[in-house]
């Protein structure tokens, strides 16, 4: 293919920032286990601890509150299982876990597992038709029996439709009862302002490859006062909460990416949101019955991730659209990727009240730090013909 790829799937993974690549490659060539006591080990440990301090400073937490993990799924599992177990151990009445219906599978599936194997009573709190948590429903669920709630988990921003969640309201509901709050913020860090201390949450998940860092490394920010039972056992490298030899190059690159993406967040968000708004407006001009899913475009108040455009195209299959755009060098997503590659209607769209049918005719374009106006132009140029063709395919089968 001669034309450059138009990559509009930054919510799946975004290219590494040059500063992160530099940090990673610099340390790949060095030897030293951060747990070793000799000079090489001390050097590696210093890199890890400086990285921890960098991340702590960028996200306003204490360095000791940064627990490195292998990524978002690892951090979510650690937070949910680890906090559930420690809370229940302290008081056996605490068997309830409250979460939103639109969490990522890295949250929903551990909760299913806890329900099935650990007797957890998981309650999923509904969202409105823009995918924003129903705080009143959460409050009612808590107040029904606050002493039985082990923890609450609500994502900072939804990965599919981009809606920001009322995390501070969640904290306000939980705090009077001393209930810990976890938030999966993998989509949020670097995209919207994230201040761990000010947010009042007790645990926060982030991952490298969503913010310009490497794959396979992430962190759980977890308040020092919060007890977390480990889910895997070994050397106890990270506060005895998580074991495993620390990935010095990955951690250095993660820190470089967090530092830079957080620093540039205001400029980045404004630029990407302008491109996104342009994309949404012009796609709807081309395909008049296309419609935006999730929160309205921002007008003053921040309501959705700046790079997210999640659009419904009635009367066609998202699969067909994706394949036709891919053939034209435009890469996007129909929703959460699935291991078997079998598309299922998105649980997020279903939770927002979409029909099964509507959930299948959607495409997610997500812009990021490498996106340009030319990317938007390419989508606008192709979308009408692609939708028309996909509609034909739908009508014929």
């Amino acid at each position, binding site marked *: 293919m001669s034309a450059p790829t138009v990559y509009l799937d930054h919510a799946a993974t975004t290219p590494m920032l040059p500063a992160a690549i530099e940090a990673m490659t610099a340390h790949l060539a060095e030897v030293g286990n951060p747990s070793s006591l000799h000079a090489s080990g001390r050097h590696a440990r210093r890199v890890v601890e400086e990285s921890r301090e960098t991340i702590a400073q960028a996200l306003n937490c204490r360095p000791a509150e940064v627990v490195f993990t292998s990524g978002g799924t690892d951090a979510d599992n650690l937070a949910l299982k680890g906090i559930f177990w420690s809370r229940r151990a302290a008081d056996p009445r605490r068997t309830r876990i409250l979460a939103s219906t639109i969490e990522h599978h890295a949250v929903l599936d551990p909760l299913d597992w806890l329900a099935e194997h650990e007797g957890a009573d998981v309650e999923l709190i509904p969202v409105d038709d823009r995918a924003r948590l129903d705080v009143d429903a959460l409050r009612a669920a808590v107040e029904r029996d606050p002493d039985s709630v082990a923890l609450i988990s609500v994502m900072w921003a939804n990965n599919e439709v981009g809606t920001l969640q009322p995390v501070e309201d969640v904290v306000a509901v939980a705090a009077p009862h001393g209930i810990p709050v976890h938030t999966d913020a993998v989509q949020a860090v670097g995209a919207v302002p994230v201040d761990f201390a000010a947010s009042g949450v007790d645990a926060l998940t982030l991952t490298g490859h969503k913010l310009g860092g490497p794959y396979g490394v992430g962190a759980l920010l977890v308040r020092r006062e919060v007890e977390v039972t480990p889910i895997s056992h070994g050397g106890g490298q990270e506060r005895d909460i998580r074991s495993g030899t620390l990935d010095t190059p990955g951690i250095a690159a993660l820190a470089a990416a967090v530092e830079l993406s957080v620093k540039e967040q205001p400029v980045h968000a404004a630029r990407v949101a302008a491109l996104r708004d342009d994309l949404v407006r012009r796609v709807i001009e081309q395909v008049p019955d296309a419609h935006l899913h999730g929160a309205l475009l921002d007008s003053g108040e921040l309501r959705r991730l700046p790079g997210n455009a999640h659009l419904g195209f009635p009367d066609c299959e998202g699969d067909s659209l994706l*394949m036709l755009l891919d053939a034209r060098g435009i890469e996007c997503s129909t929703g959460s990727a699935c291991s078997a*590659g079998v598309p299922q209607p998105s649980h997020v769209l279903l939770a927002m009240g979409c029909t099964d049918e509507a959930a299948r005719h959607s495409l997610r374009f997500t812009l990021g730090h490498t996106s340009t106006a030319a990317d938007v132009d390419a989508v606008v140029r192709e979308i009408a013909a692609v939708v028309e063709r996909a509609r*034909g395919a739908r009508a014929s089968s």
Partner: protein
Amino acid sequence: MKVLAAMSGGVDSAVAAARAAEAGHDVTGIHLALSRNPKSYRSGARGCCTIEDSNDARRAADVIGIPFYVWDLSERFHEDVVEDFMDEYAAGRTPNPCLRCNEKIKFAAVLERALALGFDAVATGHYARLRAGADGLVEMHRAVDHGKDQSYVLGVLDQHQLAHSLFPLGDTPKESVRAEAAERGLLVADKPDSHDICFVADGDNAGWLREKLGDRAPNDGGDIVDDSTGEVLGRHDGTYGFTIGQRKGLRIGRPAPDGKPRFVLDIEPVTGTVTVGPRERLAVERLSAIRPRWCGTVPRRLEGTVQLRAHGGEHRAVVTAEETAALRDGSSLASSGTISIELLDPAYGIAPGQAAVLYDGTRVVGSATISATA
């Protein structure tokens, strides 16, 4: 041409896709997801519906260097193939779900979607040959490798479907295809062939039907009756466990008086009666068949051969329109919904529901579903 290659994860469809790409076509690979819950279908390397098969297909597409997607056809497959399979057994017939899948899924739902998306043809790893006929139509012939020939399960395809199909393996013996796969670096080169029915996980059709049919089963058992004496020889726990011509698994304690083996002669789904008798009572010399489908021009009558099972032999046959009151005058195959097949050498163990595929030499003329035997 823009070609959509249906890739099951097996060696044949992988080589077919590679050949199509090498021939200069713009090929896109797709794997058909036929089950909503892949774990419930056959596990291991023998079926065509598992996550493992999907991954094998994806890796083959990587090696060939073509784009690859998974298409979810699970709902259509369930409605058109699995439900039909159950309905047919519930009615005491013996369906062939592979033909049904080709007719309704691979060369219908998939082909039509492909054409609408801008593709010109669908390529599969079936062993059959296509060539241009004298009348300008596309003819389908048996594969060079008669042992692997799959024209029988393609006998339901009409001219429109054939005109948009590619069977790149039809002129090659299976063993050469395996060798070629290895040469091309396709890791599925030594993957075992698939057999049986892809959605019956362990090959136990009767067990699968017992579980799935549940309340829909026409009966939960009945008598096994001797054809000549009317004597009840035993009991069975559901007619769907039987097919006409079946010899094994009858579990009749006593041998027949003449010491010869007994076969299923008839299945009565309402009463649950299974009639058994000697092999000669299975001989069939005349068939009626419904829902005829023609690959090209419809002959007025046909003197050719007919194949009655996927791996069955050929029988010389004369095929004519079945005379009905409405069609008495000038009835021809073209206008008839029922065809009559006279077998010049008798066939044994022929069950209603099976497909009769009609040949003129190596050329497939058409097919129909057997409705009655005599």
